[in-house]
């Protein structure tokens, strides 16, 4: 039987969280659904428990803590850097496991030393798992979207293609489809006859005026959705996108990068070997990566026990850098997950960018591991 109540180790876990110098926040169980759907997309709709208020506002049972913790921080206009912790029930429809379970975690907002904040998040999560789920076969995987971004930029792809690849990062199927298209572009696509003339002459103003005219004739507002200027600009950019073909050398480099999977103590040398072999200048990303490694070592983390997998990421547009997962057992039960989401705070309405990193622990899975000991 799945237990609906707090797991027995929760009191000790709460004490351990309090020792992490992060103010405990109490988040209401009932939340406006809009921010979750807006950040994570419509996919989440199937997995959250939705209802409607009397006035028609969409409400849900909180499916996670990061978004409401960040929103509360923005609403209260608190100075940064600041760290929050939480422990409570979340509600999600899952194929495996109960629909209500407990999560605990830390959000670290506004720490300017990103390497230090990254290392701290990973190290705290690792220590909590070591204490509360003392499994022998733990595995820790780390990924870093900013290194992938540097590689893609270094390959000299047009900006549109860089965006496509970065957007697909973390979704293996989508990324492979993009790479296949880059290797073998669809040359059959021809621009529509009504705009081909403007494109052939490079007549941007004429193109925009034409689009505007058609929109007015057909009763489409020119400012409610995509504007004539936006459509014209992308149409011109698309010519270059469709024609882009990645050279075999660059394609090999991209694939070689995505295949990198090494213990973290060998990651820096693997990355510099890769950059040298591929002839890419990604030194800025390399130094940021090394700074994080150093910060992890300074915290006493065993780099040999963590794997860096270059293709590991989360395909949500607010994740920007570090991601990690700690899992146990042969079926790789994920006990903790975390990452850097520098874009989330401004998406949620913060005036200025606020760097942010955090992690959360899955208490029901930790309980499973404890029960198996």
């Amino acid at each position, binding site marked *: 039987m799945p237990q609906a109540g707090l797991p027995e180790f929760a009191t000790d876990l709460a004490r351990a969280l309090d020792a992490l110098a992060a103010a405990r926040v109490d988040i209401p169980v009932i939340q406006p659904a809009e921010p979750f759907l807006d950040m994570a997309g*419509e996919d989440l709709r199937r997995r959250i428990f939705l209802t409607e208020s009397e006035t028609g506002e969409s409400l849900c049972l909180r499916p996670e803590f990061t978004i409401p913790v960040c929103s509360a921080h923005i609403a209260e206009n608190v100075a940064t850097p600041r760290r929050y912790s939480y422990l409570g029930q979340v509600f999600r429809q899952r194929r495996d496991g109960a629909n209500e379970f407990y999560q605990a975690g830390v959000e670290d907002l506004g720490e300017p030393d990103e390497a230090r904040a990254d290392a701290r998040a990973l190290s705290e999560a690792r220590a909590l798992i070591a204490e509360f789920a003392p499994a022998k076969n733990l595995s820790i995987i780390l990924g870093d979207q900013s290194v992938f971004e540097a590689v893609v930029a270094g390959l000299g792809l047009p900006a549109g293609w860089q965006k*496509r690849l970065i957007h697909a990062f973390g979704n293996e199927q*989508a990324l492979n489809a993009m790479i296949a298209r880059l290797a073998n572009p669809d040359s059959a*696509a021809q621009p529509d006859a009504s705009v081909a003339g403007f494109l052939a002459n490079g007549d941007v103003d004429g193109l925009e005026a034409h689009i505007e005219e058609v929109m007015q004739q057909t009763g*489409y507002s020119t400012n409610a*959705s995509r504007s004539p200027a936006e459509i014209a600009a992308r*149409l011109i950019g698309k010519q270059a996108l469709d024609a882009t073909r990645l050279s075999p050398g660059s394609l090999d480099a991209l694939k070689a990068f995505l295949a990198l999977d090494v213990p973290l103590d060998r990651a820096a040398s693997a990355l510099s070997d890769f950059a040298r072999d591929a002839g890419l200048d990604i030194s800025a990303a390399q130094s940021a990566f090394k700074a994080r490694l150093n910060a992890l070592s300074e915290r006493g983390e065993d780099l040999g026990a963590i794997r860096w997998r270059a293709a590991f990421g989360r395909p*949500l547009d607010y994740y920007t850098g570090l991601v990690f997962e700690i899992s146990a057992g042969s079926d790789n039960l994920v006990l903790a997950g975390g990452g850097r989401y520098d874009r989330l705070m401004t998406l949620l309405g913060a005036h200025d960018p606020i760097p942010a990193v955090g992690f959360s622990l899955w208490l029901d899975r930790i309980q499973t591991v404890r029960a198996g000991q």
Partner: protein
Amino acid sequence: MTLTVALPSKGRMKDDAIAIFARAGLTVSAIGNDRSYRGRIEGIEDVEVAFLSASEIARELGAGAVDFGVTGEDLVRESLARADERVEITARLGFGNADVVVAVPDIWKDVDSMADLGDVAADFRTRHGRRLTIATKYWRLTQNFFSTRHGIQLYRIVESLGATEGAPASGAADIIVDITSTGSTLTANHLRILSDGVILRSEACLVRARKAEHDADPRVAALISAVRAALG
């Protein structure tokens, strides 16, 4: 045990379904007057006909409340999660043909494919301060197609219960997912189907609710083969 067959309660779908059943030697007659919602199949004992709306038929099949139903594949796949585990499409009936498609304003000359739409969706929030919106009544089909098949997650669905094709021009949504048979309504509203934007080619189907007791019931196999034979 009574077998229940659900047929559409009105319109072309009702006439076409009854015509196929008649060709299969299954004469459907209404109990009471012509407007009755109950019927039987002449000459077969213990088979009951229920006249329901096409979307109700899909739902009742999913719940196992009816044994067979004639309804559109679009409604089956939209109403039921993991439809293939719950129902079986035993025959495609060749009428009620319509495609569920992704259509964008025709003037979006830079958007030909789902990959183009993915680019637009990825940038939409930065440019417009909101996500790309899709007007549709097909929530499930849209989500499966966009997220699972094309890895596009960043959009919002605006529920549309009618005249979906008017949503982009009226500003209610940016694009639509809707059903179309000839495409003429889309063209009239200056919308264009993406080159890889057909989500489902739907038509009316004879659908069976998966029930264990069907295996040993000769009437089930007989009904399926009679309808299949009538399709030639």
